[in-house]
C-alpha cells in the first residue's frame, strides 16, 4: 500500500482524487519535469497522480491509498454514456475506471484505444483482490479510480484519422467514423471539411473564448462553433453523436498538448509572404483560386481591376462600406470599394463567399517574370 501524493494539479481528465497530505519536494520536481510519452488517457491520469502503471498488476485508489492487486471479477459491466447509447465493458479492452468516488461525480470509462467516455457505470459484480486487504466488492458510486495493468501496446490512430476531445466533459473519441461530418461555423460562413483535412483544432480563452482550426492546406480559421456529427465506435458498438468539439489532433500526444497551454507548440505559424487572405478575426486562408476581376462601386461604367495584375489588396478604412487599396504590377495603385459584397474563395475544397467587410488583406503570388 502506497500513499497517493497530494495533487496541486488536477489533470485535464478530472479524476478528482484528493488526499489531504502535503506535497513533497519529489512530487513538485516531478510535476515540473516533462511528462513521459503518454499513450492513453488513463496513463495521463496516472502520471498526473504520480501513479505508475504496472505491467503485472492492477491498482485501486481507495481513501487516498494505492492498493496493488487484481481485478478479480467484472461481470455484466456497461457504461450508459452521456452521449447516448450503452457500451458493454470488457476488462480486456479497459485501461481504467473512475466511479463516483462517493461524491456523486460523473463516472468514466478509459479504454485501451484511448477513448474516454463519461456517463454512469453499472455492473453485476466488480471485485478487487489484494494481498494487503480482504477482497473488495466495488460499487460504481463509491469507486474512486481503478488503474488496470498495462496492455503493453500503445493505441495507434490510423493515418488520416483524428483523435477528438469533446467539449462535453472532455470525452475523447479516438475512433470516429471516417465519414463523420465536422461543421465549422464562423463569421466567414460555414464549411464541412472531411475529418482528414483537419490537421488540428484547439481553444483559447483570452481575450475571449475562441476556437482555432488548422487545415491540411495551411488555412487557420477562427471558428465560432464546431459540431461533430458521426458515429463513435467502441468495442464494435457504434452510436451516432452530435457534439461540440474542444480539440482535435492526429495523435494522442498532440491532443494533450492542444488541451494544455502548450497549444502554441503545435500551431504552424503562417508565412507572411504566402498568398493568402487575412481576415480581421485572425483567420488566414491560402489563396487557392484565381481572383476574378474586381469591379468598384464608383465605377458603374464597368472599370475593373484584373485579378492577375494584383499583388496585394489592403483594407484602409474600417468604415462602412470598407475601402481597400489595390496594388498591382505596372505601378497599379488605386483605392475603392468593391461592388460585389463578397470575395469568393475555397477552403478545404468548399466554396466560401467571404464578405469584404471581414477582409484585412489579400496577398497574391509574385507575378511570373516574363522571359527576355
Amino acid at each position, binding site marked *: 500500500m502506497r500513499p497517493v501524493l497530494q495533487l*496541486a*494539479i*488536477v*489533470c*485535464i481528465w*478530472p479524476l*478528482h482524487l*484528493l488526499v*489531504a497530505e502535503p506535497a513533497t519536494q519529489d512530487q513538485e520536481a516531478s*510535476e515540473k519535469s516533462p511528462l513521459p510519452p503518454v499513450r492513453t488517457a488513463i496513463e495521463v491520469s496516472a502520471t*498526473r497522480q504520480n501513479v505508475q502503471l504496472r505491467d503485472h498488476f492492477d491498482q485501486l485508489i481507495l481513501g487516498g491509498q494505492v492498493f496493488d492487486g487484481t481485478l478479480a471479477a467484472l461481470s455484466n459491466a456497461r457504461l450508459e454514456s452521456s452521449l447516448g447509447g450503452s457500451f458493454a465493458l470488457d476488462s480486456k479492452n479497459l485501461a481504467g475506471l473512475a466511479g463516483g*468516488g*462517493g*461524491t*456523486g*461525480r460523473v463516472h468514466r470509462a478509459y479504454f485501451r484505444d484511448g477513448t474516454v467516455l463519461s456517463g454512469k457505470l453499472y455492473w453485476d459484480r466488480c471485485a478487487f483482490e489484494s494481498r494487503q486487504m480482504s477482497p473488495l466488492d466495488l460499487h460504481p458510486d463509491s469507486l474512486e479510480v481503478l488503474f488496470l495493468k498495462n496492455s503493453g501496446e500503445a493505441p495507434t490512430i490510423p493515418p488520416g484519422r483524428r483523435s477528438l476531445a469533446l*467539449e*462535453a*466533459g*472532455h470525452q475523447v473519441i479516438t475512433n470516429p467514423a471516417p465519414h463523420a461530418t465536422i461543421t465549422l*461555423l*464562423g*463569421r466567414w*460562413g*460555414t464549411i464541412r471539411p472531411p475529418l482528414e483535412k483537419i490537421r488540428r483544432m484547439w481553444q483559447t*480563452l*483570452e*481575450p*475571449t*473564448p475562441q476556437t482555432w482550426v488548422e487545415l491540411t492546406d495551411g488555412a487557420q480559421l477562427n471558428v*465560432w*462553433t464546431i459540431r461533430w456529427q458521426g458515429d463513435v465506435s467502441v468495442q464494435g458498438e457504434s452510436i451516432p453523436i452530435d457534439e461540440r468539439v474542444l480539440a482535435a489532433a492526429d495523435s494522442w500526444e498532440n491532443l494533450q498538448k492542444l*488541451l*494544455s*497551454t502548450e497549444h502554441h507548440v503545435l500551431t504552424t505559424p503562417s508565412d507572411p509572404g504566402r498568398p493568402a487572405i487575412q481576415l*480581421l*478575426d*485572425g483567420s488566414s486562408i491560402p489563396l487557392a483560386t484565381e481572383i476574378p476581376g474586381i469591379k*468598384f*462601386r*464608383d465605377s*458603374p461604367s464597368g472599370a475593373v481591376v484584373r485579378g492577375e495584375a494584383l499583388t496585394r489588396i489592403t483594407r484602409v478604412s*474600417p*468604415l*462602412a*462600406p*470598407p*475601402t481597400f487599396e489595390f496594388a498591382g504590377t505596372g505601378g497599379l495603385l488605386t483605392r*475603392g*470599394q468593391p*461592388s460585389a*459584397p463578397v470575395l469568393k474563395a475555397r477552403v478545404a475544397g468548399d466554396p466560401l463567399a467571404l*464578405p*469584404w*467587410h*471581414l477582409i484585412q488583406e489579400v496577398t497574391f503570388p509574385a507575378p511570373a517574370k516574363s522571359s527576355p
Partner: protein
Amino acid sequence: MTRLPIYCLCMLAAFLAYETSDGAPVPAMVPFSQTPITDRHGREWNIDQNGNVQRSDTSPSLISNAAVLMMGSQQFYCQQPAISSDGTTLEMAVPKPYHGLAVTRHLRILDKEGGVAYADVFSNITGREVQTVVEFRYHFSGKIKRLVTSSGRTSPTSLDPGDEGIFIEPAQNDSNLPAVVLSLTDEHTEATPKMSLRNGYQLSISHTLSIPPGGSSTIIHAVGQTRLDATGEVDAFAQNFRTWRLKRIAQMLPKRWTESAVNLVVESPLNTLKEWFPAQHWGIGRDASDILALGDETRLKGRAQISGLQLEHALGKLMIEWDQVVAIAGPSYLSTDQPMIWLADGQILKGTLTANEPKFEMLSGTSMPLDFDKMDRLVRGTTHGPPEGIPDPAPEGLIELWSGERISISPDMEWKTLSRWGPLAIPWRSVITWVHSDGMELAPMLVLRDGSRIRTIAQGSPSPFQTRLFGKQSLNPAETRRAIHPTVILAEVGNDLEPAESFLELAGDQRLVAHVTDTSLTIATAGGPLTISPGEIREILDTTDDRNDSTAGDLRWHQVELWGGSSVVGQLQNPVLTVEGQGFSWTIPVREIRRVVNPVPRIETNVVQRVAELIQHLGHADWKIREDASAELAELGPLAQASLRQAIRQSTDPEVIRRLEALLSLDE
C-alpha cells in the same frame, strides 16, 4: 518609512466608505503622505506627492522618476495629495490653474498587473479655446537595452499610428530587472503622441490638446513593470501588451475619469447615434437655410425645392415626404453607384432618387436644377430634423448594413443570433444594441436591457426582418454591421449596474442574466469534495489568475460564498454548468465562467420551515428559548429576511416586534 501592502490599506475601506448618488460605494479620500505601496508581485511603487513614480529603495527597477507631468517648462505640482481609504486610488490637483487650465491627476494602482494607471484631467476654465502641449517624462536608472513598441517594432524613433505603447528593455547587465511598459494610447485614436528619447535615459511622450471653453480633456496612460519573453520574438511583445492595452486598463477606471479621454475611443452605443447625421463628418455645420456643398470649399445657402420625391430602393419603391429629409449625398461624393438619403427618423437609404423638377434656390435669388445622380451634398436647414443630431422621436430599432444604409425595423420582431453556446432568439424590445468590437477581431456584442452582454454572430440563411417602410423583408444577417435601439440607449447608456437577478460573468467581457439549473455542484477542497446546491450560493468567483498556479491544468480555482456566511475554496468539478435565462437554456464550460452571482437567496424549504419555527420561538414563555431563537435568526442573516419582514407586519407582541426590528436592522 513604513511600507504597506495594498491589502492592509483595503482594510480601512469598510470604515471610510460612502455612497455616490447612484448607490455605488466609493471609498472616501484621506490625506496621502508618501508611502510606498507594494503590489501583489511584490514590487514597490514609490509615488510622490505629484504623482510621479520615484526610484524604490528596495525593489530593483529601471524606473528612476516616471510619469512626470510637464506643462510647458512647468512641472505639475500638488500641495496636498489624497488617497482613497482602500489604498487603490490617489488624487492630486494643482493649487492654481496653469494658463487657464485646472489640472487634476487621478492615479489607480494596478495591483494585479503591477503598475499605475493615470487619468490626467485638463479643464479649461476660460471663455476661449486653449491649445497646449503636455509632456510626460520618464527617467530610467539603468542603461536601456532598447525600446520596443507594442506591436514588436524595435528601436523606434517615433510612434506610428496603431502603436499603443512601448516596452523599455533593461541592458544585458541588468537583465534581472523587469522591463518597463508604458500604455500610451488607444490604437483607434486619430492623434498619435510624439516620442523622443534623450541620452538613452530619458523618454518623453507629448500630446497636443485643444480644449474648448468650459470643456475638459483627459489623457489616460499607465506605467508598469513586466517580465518579457526571453525569446524576444515580435509576437511575444504583442502578446504581453494585451495586459497593458489602454482600452483594457480604462475598464478598471471609473467611467467619470475616462469620459473626456482624448487618447481613448470609448465604445458607446450612444456614439453610434451621434454619428447618425452626416453634418459632423461632412464638415458642414447646420444652418437655418439649406446648404448645397460643391467640393471642399463651395457652400451655397438657400432652399431646395423638391416635390414628388421617390426612392427606388432594392427592397421596394417609396414616396418620401420632403419634410422628412435631412440630407442627400450623391454618388460622386460617396463613391457609390447611387445616392443616399438621410431621413429625420434616423434611416439612411440608398437607391435611385427622382422628383418633379428639383431645384436649389440661393438666398441671392439664383436658381439651379438639382441632379441627384451628379450632386455633391445637400444638408437641410435646422428647421428640418432634430437639432442635436439625434432623431426625435427616436426610432424603436435600426439596423445598419455594411453598405452604410440604416433601416428602421419593427419593434415587434425577434432578433435571431448565435452565441457560442447555442442560438438565441430575443424580442427586439429587450435589445439595446448589437455591435462589432473595435477592429472586429472579436465577435459582436449583444447588449440586452436586462444587463446581459453576450458575444453573438450573425449567421445562417437569410431570415425575415420586419421593416417599417418596406414591410416584411428577407435580409442576410451577415450583411448587418450593427443594430441599435435608440430609445433604450438614450435611457440606459452608462447605467451598467449589476443586475438584481442571478447572473454569470464570462470570459470575453460577457455577462449573462441567468440562473444555474444543475441540481448540485461539486467542489474539490483541501479537506475533500463538497457537494452544494446552487440555491445555497451567493457568489462563485474564479480565482485561478490570482493564485498564479500554472499546474492547475484545465480545472480552475474558485472561491464560493454561501448564503449564511460560509466560504469554500476549491476547484469546481462540474465541467459545464447548465444555465437558463430569457429564451435559452445552455450548457457553458466552467473554464469560461469567471463569476456566478445570486443577489437574492433562493431559500430551501427546510430553511423556511426552520425560520418560521424560530420566529414562533421569539414569543416563547422561556427567555432562554427567545434568546436562542434571536441568535440563530441573526446567524441566518439574509436567508431569514423575507420571513422576518412578513412577521413584523403580522405580530402584535411588543417584545417579538422589538426582536424582529433588531434582527432586520442587522442587515441594513
